[in-house]
């Protein structure tokens, strides 16, 4: 049983116009076996939260804490966080020319486990996981994400999730840009990983669509860098019907517009 705890997190980025605060005091606790959905309009800071947990150098934590079973995540380097059991499925997976998928997956698995996987079972595991995600076998020979379509990149992110077996998976808009078939395949992958019972899931999404396939236990609504409402799965249904507009009246339409503008920037 693990706990990922985020307390009063404030995060800024440097822009050409100066320092800009994106997260304005976010608190969140996720435990093994739980699925949390973070929803919100564009520019509300959802992806910033995901990248900050993973340790992207662009995001500066100005106050607050992130701990994993009491360990200070913010003190860890990016690779240490991954080895501690955090996995970020990226919104825009990067192409890494010259590095084959086979080599990459094995190197990462070795780093995370602290020892090289047994070759025979590893190859079998990779093959099986790829088949379930409907990824062609020849992808292993290709360079990491190079020339993959948007949907293929997302499936390869979930492939890594299934192979690396993290304690917590953070899915940063994994559903965006996917057609319904791909969305189902990807959701099944997440559910398989989650179903093993050793993982907590933080699902970041703009749309409610993916929540038909991945059932959240908790829903948090993000607006302008803060959680403005929390609830159970029924909150997602309500968002599906009403959209984010009603938060605009609460927080002020201008805030939403500004947040959207920031996201565009």
């Amino acid at each position, binding site marked *: 049983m693990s706990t990922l705890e985020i307390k009063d997190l404030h995060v800024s980025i440097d822009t050409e116009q100066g320092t800009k605060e994106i997260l304005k005091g976010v608190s969140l606790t996720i435990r093994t076996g739980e699925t949390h959905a973070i929803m919100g309009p564009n520019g509300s800071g959802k992806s910033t939260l995901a990248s900050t947990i*993973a*340790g*992207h*150098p662009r995001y500066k934590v100005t106050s607050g804490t992130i701990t994993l079973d009491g360990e200070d995540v913010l003190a860890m*380097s*990016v*690779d240490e*966080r*991954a*080895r501690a059991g955090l996995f*970020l499925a*990226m919104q825009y*997976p*990067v192409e*890494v*020319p*010259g*590095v*084959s998928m086979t*080599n*990459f997956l094995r*190197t*990462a698995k070795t*780093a*995370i486990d602290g020892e090289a996987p047994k070759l025979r079972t590893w190859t079998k595991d990779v093959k099986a996981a790829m088949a379930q995600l409907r990824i062609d076998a020849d992808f292993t020979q290709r*360079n*990491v994400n190079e020339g993959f379509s948007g949907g293929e990149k997302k499936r390869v992110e979930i492939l*890594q999730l299934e192979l*690396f077996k993290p304690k917590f998976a953070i899915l940063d808009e994994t559903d965006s840009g996917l057609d319904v078939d791909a969305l189902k395949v990807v959701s099944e992958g997440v559910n398989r990983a989650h179903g093993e019972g050793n993982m907590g899931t933080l699902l970041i999404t703009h749309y409610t669509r993916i929540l038909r396939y991945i059932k959240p236990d908790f829903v948090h609504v993000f607006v302008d860098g803060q959680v403005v409402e929390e609830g159970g799965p029924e909150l997602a249904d309500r968002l599906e019907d009403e959209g984010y507009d009603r938060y605009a009246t609460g927080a002020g339409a201008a805030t939403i517009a500004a947040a959207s503008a920031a996201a565009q920037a």
Partner: protein
Amino acid sequence: MTDITTEKARIGAPSAQPFINGFTEEGESLSPLNAAESKAPLAGEAVKRHSHGGGVGVPDSSRAGRLTSYKLADFKPLTGMEEDWRFTPLKRLRGLHTEVLTGAAPAVSVTAPDSVKVETVGRDDRRIGSAAIPEDRVSANAWENFTEATVITVPSEVQVDGEVSVLLTGQGTDASAQHVVIVAEKFSKSVVVLDHQGTAVVSENIEILVEDGAQLTVISLQEWNDDAVHASSQQAKLGRDAKFKHIVVSLGGDLVRVTPSARFTAPGAEVELFGLYFADAGQHLEQRLFVDHAVANCKSNVLYKGALQGRNAHTVWVGDVLIRKEAEGTDTYEANRNLVLTDGARADSVPNLEIETGLIAGAGHASATGRFDDQHLFYLMARGIPEEVARRLVVRGFLNEIIQKINVPAIEERLTEAVERELAATNH
């Protein structure tokens, strides 16, 4: 990696007759003073002649106009201002451009199957000058000063199993001259490895004759000691339907300048020119290649990849591809990629494509020089891979594309290890 610029030139049919001599509707193509001697001067009667560049007062803006001669005296002393020397630190040439090259040339030791003929010959051997003519002062200096040459002949229709290995071991720092001739006779098939090791200050001329229908791979490895200075002109002349693959690998040495060229003399031939270089602090690694499409329906493909690390690591890549008026149906592409790993290194990259006919299948050139990308690093580290390992993974992957072209397992393995050693030095 970043900022990849690719240009595909496809030019429409040329006008019948230019209004001004030397000018087409595409602009100036060739110096008019030069037109009479614009054909590649090679072998036979050409041996006794030489061509001057653009002539007095005319800059040799076209590669076709480059001065070529067997006589040192025809080349003016170098100032460093010349187009083909402007990136080279002449002070570090250790006399290759000024001294009489009387030092002991690197010792040559050839390991080859019995089917291959290996000879040591004098200056008057008829095969000397059959494939090459010096294009710069340093090359001409070697031509004037070499005392004996190694001639390697793969006889007609012989398919050589395994590779012909030519080990060239430096004999010290006295400026020296070396000459090697490789003849791949008709319909032969072979791989020749030139393996440069030790300490030398040497100007080298490698002549490569690829006869009709022959398939030849030449791999030139520069794994010199840190104090070596090496200028190497490697000129290939290709017959009809010949296939030639040339791979330059420069890792060691203080200053290494390799100038490969491929000249087509009959249709249907193909060349592939590949290169890999890895410059450390203070190293100057230069490669200038020339592909001369002088006849119709030939193909060329060029890819050079380089990595740089450390203060004053300097690499130069200049790729000259010339499609002459006669070379209709040409298909050519050249690209250079550089990966700069640390601050303080400098990569110069100049792809030059000259097209004198529009009736071609394709012509393109590309160059990209990128830093090791923080986004790559973040992605790999976010999967638990430590920074050091991630860096190696990317560089190894980057250079592996060239290593894979070698197809000689023992050498591929050796180079992979050599690249690992270079990378290990990043930490210091």
